[in-house]
């Protein structure tokens, strides 16, 4: 990309960002649409998050057990799994699943509305489409990702427990007592903050890609693709930055 278009694009992204914050706190509120979008976000990703989080818990436990056994440290398994899941695996898996599922959905939906002039139709009837379509979606993903991460953490730990129980016959109480004793408030808090940033990034990037898509059907595909790829990229970047930041408090 040449320098001038890059600068123009950066200015456009900044304006989009500014507009979201301005309109999010500008009456009239879009709470009805936000609730609807929150339900859609949860509904769309619920099954995938459940499935992948459960598998992640099972696989991580299965893979870690032999290494720990060789040091005679098998009893550390619940603490290892819980820290890995809550600090990193849970938010990362949920973020990536949602980037794929919600990113493509939001990007394609807004882009096709743009192509078929539905956004223009809202604009010319004075219906404030930006606040209705973009602000509500960004708010919904930002609010829902932390909830999904908490849910994914629980499911992953459940998967881990079932695996441990199956192999060692470890009891539910013992397993989760060990988990609880090794998790700190900082772990939980940092995981939720990270998830909030993931949610905002997914909503923002996907909405930007869709709302500013080029006309034509190829624009719809391009918007969906951009939404997924850039959202995933930003999830890794945010994860890295947050890790550095949180380590300052450990």
């Amino acid at each position, binding site marked *: 990309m040449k320098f001038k278009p890059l600068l123009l694009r950066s200015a456009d992204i900044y304006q989009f960002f500014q507009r979201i914050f301005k309109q999010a706190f500008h009456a009239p509120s879009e709470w009805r649409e936000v609730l609807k979008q929150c339900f859609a976000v949860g509904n769309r990703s619920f099954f995938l998050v459940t499935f992948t989080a459960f598998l992640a818990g099972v696989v991580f436990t299965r893979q870690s057990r032999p290494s720990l056994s060789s040091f005679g440290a098998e009893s550390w398994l619940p603490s290892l799994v819980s820290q890995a899941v809550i600090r990193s695996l849970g938010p990362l898996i949920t973020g990536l699943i949602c980037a794929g599922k919600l990113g493509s959905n939001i990007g394609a939906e807004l882009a096709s509305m743009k192509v078929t002039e539905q956004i*223009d139709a809202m604009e010319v009837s004075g219906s404030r489409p930006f606040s209705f379509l973009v602000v509500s979606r960004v708010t919904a993903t930002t609010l829902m990702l932390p909830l999904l991460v908490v849910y994914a953490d629980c499911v992953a730990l459940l998967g881990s427990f079932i695996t441990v129980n199956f192999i060692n016959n470890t009891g539910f109480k013992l397993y989760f007592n060990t988990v609880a004793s090794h998790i700190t408030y900082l772990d939980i808090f940092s995981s939720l903050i990270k998830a909030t940033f993931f949610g905002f990034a997914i909503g923002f990037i996907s909405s930007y890609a869709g709302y500013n898509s080029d006309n034509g059907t190829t624009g719809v595909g391009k918007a969906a693709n951009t939404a997924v790829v850039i959202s995933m990229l930003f999830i890794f970047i945010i994860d890295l930055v947050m890790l550095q930041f949180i380590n300052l408090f450990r």
Partner: protein
Amino acid sequence: MDTSADYLKKSSTAKMGNRPIVASLRHVKKSFGAMEVLRDISLDLHQNENLVILGRSGTGKSVLIKCMVGLIRADTGEINVLGCDVRSLTPDQLDELRLQIGFSFQGSALYDSMTVRQNLEFPLKRNKAIFKKKELEDLVINALKDVGLENTSDKMPSELSGGMKKRIGIARTLILKPKIMLYDEPTAGLDPITATEINELILSVREKYNTSSIIITHDISCARQTSDRIIALVNGLNKEESTFDELKQTKDPDLAPFFSY
């Protein structure tokens, strides 16, 4: 070729009597990159008038009406609609003005995730803050009756034919009781019978809602049926302005082909 100044000399007021002007454009220009789409457009729309803008595809007809509602920003010129200078309005003022202008899109632009009822309720909820079920129901049914589709309220846009979509699109704009209607290619892609029905609808909307309309078209039968006055647009300029019967006699090589079919 007429320039905008020539157009102004042949004042349209003479043709439209003393009807007040509800929208006027002066020396409007718009380019996309190096391509000049509107080169110097001036026109007046009078109260209760149906003004047809006739021209070939790509002559800037749709761009012209999009400039009038601020969807596209004109590069230069004056655009005055219902006493407001469109180019200098703030976003909130523009939204206020847009409530008085109905815009019927070429592709209907119905919200495809909503039923017909929800499509019609949407502008009422968003702009007039009407949420009472009974009130919404009455307004929706009345608007649907006006376009002859009162039994479609629970259908999805994908279940409707092209002509029905156009009618619902018009009903959605009428529900806000606009003073000006802008129709972008209202008969494009429709069979002649459905196109005639849409033309009749345009005339009945004017009668019932007392609207002034700009109808963008390249369909000569649409122009014949709906126009009080026609402005022919060629290469981004007002080429000719007259009634349909006068224009039919033209020997202009750019316009004569329209009437030879």
